C-alpha cells in the first residue's frame, strides 16, 4: 500500500545532496583545515632529508613577514606585485566592458554585427591561459616576430628583451588578463543593463537627459549590484593569478621577481621543497585576504545602492 498524502520525502533530500557534501568535505573542507593546521608546523624537505613536522607556533608567519638579506619582505612584495598586475588589467577591463555594454544595449546607436563582436571578444576567455601566455612569450621573445619587425623597420638597433624589463613584463601580463576577461565582463554587464526596467530610460529621455546623464544617473546606480559582483569576482580571480605569469616568466617572475604573484609563491613552496609549513602560512594569508576583500568591497559598494 502506498500513501500519497503525508509521505515524508525528506530523506530523499539528504540522499540527493549526499554525494556533493561527501566529496566537498573529503576533497576541499578537510584539505582546507589541514592546510591551516600545516601553517603552524615546520615541515619540509631539504635535499633527501625530511625536516619535521614539528610544532613551531607562529614562526612560519613571522618568517613570512621578515625581511630577507636585501631587505625585501617576500610576502609584501609578491602581494604588491599581484595587486599591481591586477589593477593594470582590471581597471581597463571594467571600464571598457562598461562602455561596450552601454554601446551594445543602446537603442539609439543600434549597433550592427553584435553577434560577431561578442563572439570575438569573448573568445580569449576560453583559451588555455598557459598556451596564451606561451604564445605571447614566443611573439615577444628576443628572436620573435615583434622584435623582427622593430629591428627591420629600424625602430630599434638591438632586440628588446621584453621579458627582462619590469614594466614590459607587467604590461604584457596585464594585457593578457585584460584580453581574457573584458569580453566576459561585457557580457555580464550587458545582461545587467538589459535587466533594468526600460521605463527608466524612457523617463530619462522624456526628461531630456543627455546620454552621459542617463549613464551616470540611471544606468550606473541601477547596475551597482552587478558591478559589485563583477569587481569582487575579478578581485578574487586576480588573487589567483598564476598560469599567465608562471608560463610567461618560466616560474621566475622576471625581472628580479617583480612579476612574481602570491600563487606563484605558494606554488614555489609546493614544488621540490614540499615546504607545507610555509605554503600553509601563505594559504592562511590568501584566505584572509580573499575573505575580507569580498566583504569590504561588498559593504562599501552596496551601501549607496541600498538607500
Amino acid at each position: 500500500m502506498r500513501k500519497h498524502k503525508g509521505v515524508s520525502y525528506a530523506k530523499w533530500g539528504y540522499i540527493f545532496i549526499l554525494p556533493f557534501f561527501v566529496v566537498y568535505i573529503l576533497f576541499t573542507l578537510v584539505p582546507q583545515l589541514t592546510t591551516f593546521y600545516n601553517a603552524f608546523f615546520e615541515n619540509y624537505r631539504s635535499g633527501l632529508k625530511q625536516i619535521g613536522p614539528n610544532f613551531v607556533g607562529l614562526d612560519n608567519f613571522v618568517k613570512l613577514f621578515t625581511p630577507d638579506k636585501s631587505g625585501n619582505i617576500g610576502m609584501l612584495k609578491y602581494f604588491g606585485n599581484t595587486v599591481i598586475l591586477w589593477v593594470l588589467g582590471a581597471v581597463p577591463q571594467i571600464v571598457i566592458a562598461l562602455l561596450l555594454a552601454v554601446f551594445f544595449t543602446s537603442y539609439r546607436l543600434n549597433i550592427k554585427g553584435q553577434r560577431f563582436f561578442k563572439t570575438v571578444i569573448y573568445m580569449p576567455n576560453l583559451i588555455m591561459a598557459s598556451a596564451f601566455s606561451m604564445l605571447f612569450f614566443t611573439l615577444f621573445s628576443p628572436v620573435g616576430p615583434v622584435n623582427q619587425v622593430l629591428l627591420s623597420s629600424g625602430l630599434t638597433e638591438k632586440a628588446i628583451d621584453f621579458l627582462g624589463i619590469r614594466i614590459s613584463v607587467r604590461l604584457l601580463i596585464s594585457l593578457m588578463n585584460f584580453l581574457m576577461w573584458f569580453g566576459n565582463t561585457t557580457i555580464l554587464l550587458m545582461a545587467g543593463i538589459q535587466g533594468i526596467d526600460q521605463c527608466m530610460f524612457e523617463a530619462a529621455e522624456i526628461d531630456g537627459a543627455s546620454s552621459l546623464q542617463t549613464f551616470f544617473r540611471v544606468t550606473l546606480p541601477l547596475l551597482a549590484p552587478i558591478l559589485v559582483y563583477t569587481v569582487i569576482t575579478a578581485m578574487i580571480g586576480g588573487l589567483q593569478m598564476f598560469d599567465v605569469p608562471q608560463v610567461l616568466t618560466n616560474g621566475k617572475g622576471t625581472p628580479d621577481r617583480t612579476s612574481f604573484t602570491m600563487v606563484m609563491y605558494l606554488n614555489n613552496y609546493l614544488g621540490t621543497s614540499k615546504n607545507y609549513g610555509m605554503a600553509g602560512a601563505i594559504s592562511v594569508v590568501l584566505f584572509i585576504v580573499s575573505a575580507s576583500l569580498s566583504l569590504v568591497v561588498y559593504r562599501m559598494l552596496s551601501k549607496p545602492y541600498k538607500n
Partner: protein
Amino acid sequence: MKNAENTKGRIMLFASRFVVYTILIFLSVLCLFSFYMMIINASRSNAELQGGFTPWFSTHLWDNLQNAWNDASINIPRGMLNSFLIAAACAVLTTYFSALTAYGVHVYDFKLKKFAFYFIMAVMMIPPQVSAVGFIQLCYQFKLTNNYIPLIVPSIAAPVVFFYMKQYLESVLPMEIVEAARIDGSNEFSTFNRIVLPIMKPAIAVQMIFAFVSSWNNYFIPALLLDKADLKTVPIMIAQLRSADYSKFDMGKVYMFIFLAILPVLVVYIILSKSIIRGATAGAVKG
C-alpha cells in the same frame, strides 16, 4: 529651427556610431591578432621564421603538424587524449551531481535544507588554491599522485555549477510534474533521471561545455600531481615547452604545439558560440 536641430542630431549620431565601430573593430583586432600570428607562424618553417617576419601564410603547416605530432620529448597526442579523458569525465560528473544536488535542495523539505544552500553559497567564493596544500598532502598520503582520481572526483562538488542549476530549476520546473510522477508510482530517483534531467538538458549542455573547457585548461593542480610523462596533460606540456631551451627549438613546431593545445576548445567555441555566450550570462546574474 527644428530642421537644423534634426540635422545636428543626425551628425552627432553618425559621429558617435563612427567612434563606437572604430573602438569595436580595434578591440576585435586586438583579440584576434595574436591568434592570427599563431596560425600563420604555425604554417612557416623554422628557417622562414628565423629569416624575418611576413604577415602571410606559408606552406609548411602540414610539416609542422607532423613534426609536432611525432615529437619525441613532448607527446602531444597523448597529452590531448589525457586532457580529453579528464575533461570529459569532469564535465559529466560535475553537471550530473550539481543537477542532483540542486534538485535535492530545490524540491525537498528537510531540516538542513537552508543550511545546505547557504553553506554552498558561502564557499562559492573561496579560491581553490587556498586548500591546495592539504589537497596535495592528502594525495601523497593516499598514493594518488600520478593518478586521475584527484583531478576528476572533486568535480562532483562544484558550488558554481550547483548555483546555476538551482537557478535553472527555479525557472523551469513546476512541482506539478514531480507530483504527477509520484502519483504514477515513479520513485524519486527515477523521477530525477527520467523526467527532470531531460528538462534540464539546456542547462546541462552549457555547463558541460564550461566544465570541459576549464578542466582542459587547468594547470595549477595537475602540474603538482602528475610527473609521469605518459600521464601529463596539455597545459603541463605547454609549460614544459617554455622551460626548455627555446633557442634550439624548431619554432614552427612550437607554434603548432600552441595551436594544437587550444584547437579543440576553439572548434567547440566556433560551433557553439551562441549558446556558450548565452550560458555565460544566465548563471551569474540573478534575473
